[in-house]
């Protein structure tokens, strides 16, 4: 619990809900007749609505990017390090919007929502959504708020894929795309990690073909396994070594299989925590959206041609020890943008924090990102 709200925090935030009755035709061919999106906003939208920033969340993120929901919250939103008055994404200058993606489990329509046809939770009947469907729904929310063009669309990891997708799906609706620790598509290794995680969930006896909520249970064991594996891939060998080393909970070894090393306890804790806050079907759906993302497949796998329609400027950032979305994957995006004559800047930030680095206030990252955001305020006279 924060003793008091820090001066550089956006403060106590109340999420809002937008309801859409216009059907949304999804890439899969299915249609959502109506849906709702839960979102938060920080800062004030200016009179000509030119200062809006869209934050796209990653796999396990949600709409709560900054500030606190109440004074009882233990932690602020997931990107509080970067969003707030005077911070990198300065809420004194920008109107910052972040929503829970469709198919999510934190308030937007998704597998945990009641299916109007059956009056039971959708569960695995919720249609699979893809990154382009998210972009479409985000654009509709922008329409609702009267935002014609974002000053920037920003995201890390899966969020970076959404920013990239925005640049080709609605090229005229953003001035800048900030693509952090991301990739133009997943590698075989990345898809494999996702499949192991999905398999752990689907094979859990409590999964019940995805209709576990109707039975009043959750596939907790599977979710814990999935999260333990995924969490591990977001960290680096060096980072884990520094944080935990071979430190043990007790001095004596037990000669049994209960967690003894600190890293084991940590992973169990992370898995346990995640399993109580995240829906298994949402996890499955989000990982599939990641796997399917490959915008260049529509331009004969030519990423340069794919990005040639973009009109915005780009900042691309990667982190040296990120092996889940390695610098080389970001550089594929940069190379394609250069070949397409787009404005792009790129930095490869030294960090031992692995993929998770994009969420952390690493000094060089903050300085560079901040310089880019300041440049946006100058360009747009904000």
């Amino acid at each position, binding site marked *: 619990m924060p003793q008091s709200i820090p001066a550089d925090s956006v403060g106590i935030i109340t999420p809002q809900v937008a309801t859409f009755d216009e059907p949304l035709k999804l890439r899969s061919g299915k249609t959502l007749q109506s849906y709702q999106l839960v979102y938060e906003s920080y800062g004030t939208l200016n009179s000509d609505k030119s200062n809006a920033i869209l934050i796209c969340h990653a796999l396990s993120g949600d709409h709560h990017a900054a500030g606190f929901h109440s004074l009882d919250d233990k932690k602020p939103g997931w990107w509080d390090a970067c969003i707030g008055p005077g911070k990198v994404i300065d809420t004194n200058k920008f109107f910052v919007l972040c929503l829970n993606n469709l198919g999510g489990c934190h308030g937007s329509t998704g597998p945990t929502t009641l299916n109007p046809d059956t009056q039971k939770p959708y569960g695995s009947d919720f249609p699979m959504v893809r990154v382009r469907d998210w972009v479409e729904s985000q654009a509709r929310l922008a329409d609702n708020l009267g935002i014609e063009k974002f000053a920037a669309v920003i995201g890390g990891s899966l969020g970076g894929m959404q920013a990239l997708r925005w640049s080709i799906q609605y090229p005229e609706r953003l001035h800048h795309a900030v693509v952090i620790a991301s990739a133009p598509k997943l590698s075989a290794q990345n898809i494999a990690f996702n499949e192991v995680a999905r398999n752990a969930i689907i094979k859990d006896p409590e999964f019940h073909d995805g209709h576990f909520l109707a039975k009043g249970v959750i596939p907790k064991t599977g979710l814990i396994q999935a999260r333990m594996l995924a969490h591990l891939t977001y960290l680096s060998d060096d980072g884990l070594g520094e944080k935990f080393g071979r430190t043990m909970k007790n001095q004596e070894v037990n000669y049994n299989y209960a967690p003894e090393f600190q890293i084991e306890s940590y992973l169990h804790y992370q898995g346990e925590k995640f399993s109580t806050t995240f829906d298994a079907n949402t996890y499955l759906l989000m990982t599939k959206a990641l796997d399917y993302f490959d915008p260049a497949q529509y331009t004969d796998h030519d990423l340069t041609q794919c990005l040639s329609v973009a009109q915005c400027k780009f*900042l691309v950032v990667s982190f040296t020890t990120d092996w889940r979305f390695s610098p080389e994957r970001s*550089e594929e995006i*940069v*190379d394609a943008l*250069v*070949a397409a*004559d787009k*404005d*792009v*800047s*790129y*930095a*490869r930030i030294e960090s031992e924090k692995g993929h998770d680095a994009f969420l952390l206030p690493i000094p*060089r990252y903050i*300085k*560079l990102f901040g*310089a*880019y955001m*300041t*440049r946006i305020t*100058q*360009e747009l006279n904000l």
Partner: protein
Amino acid sequence: MSLRSDLDIIQNWVNPNSQVLDLGCGQGDLLSFLKEQKQCKTYGLEINEDSIVSCVEKGINVIEHDLNDGLQHFNDASVDTVIMTQALQAVNRPDALLEDMLRVGKEAIITFPNFGYWRTRWFLLRKGRMPMSKTLPYNWYDTPNIHMCTFHDFEKLCREKGLTILERTVVDNDHQESLAIRLWPNLLGEIAIYRVTR
């Protein structure tokens, strides 16, 4: 907006509205000038963190990249001019990078310090030690300048590679030309600015 005098010579050799790649673009002063005054499409490669931030602040396209990794990220003939100021002597394989510059660009503009400068020669002759000067302020063991050459050496390399030297300006450390330098460039010139093509 005024440019350092060597950069002013370079910008004169760049056509308006052309595409420019600057290898080791520093804080982006030259690219900023070319972008604003000559409406060039510019990219800079840089490895220094603070320089990268300076470029971002100026709105210059800057890509973090180690020149020793070559230019394989850039397509053949994708820019008009590739510029490299005072970095040729600091890369692992200047010959390979020179080739790469003229694969990516139609022309290359290169500047480097002249190891044949008379003071350098005199330093070595008199003291018997690796030369140090205002242009070359490092000790032999910590210098980033690992491939020093003279103007003659560079021009021999260009001949061997079949490259054409379109223009050459030789200046002193303050980037000033003089009659004496024009007469005996390899002895009196400290820095050369070359414009080469294939």
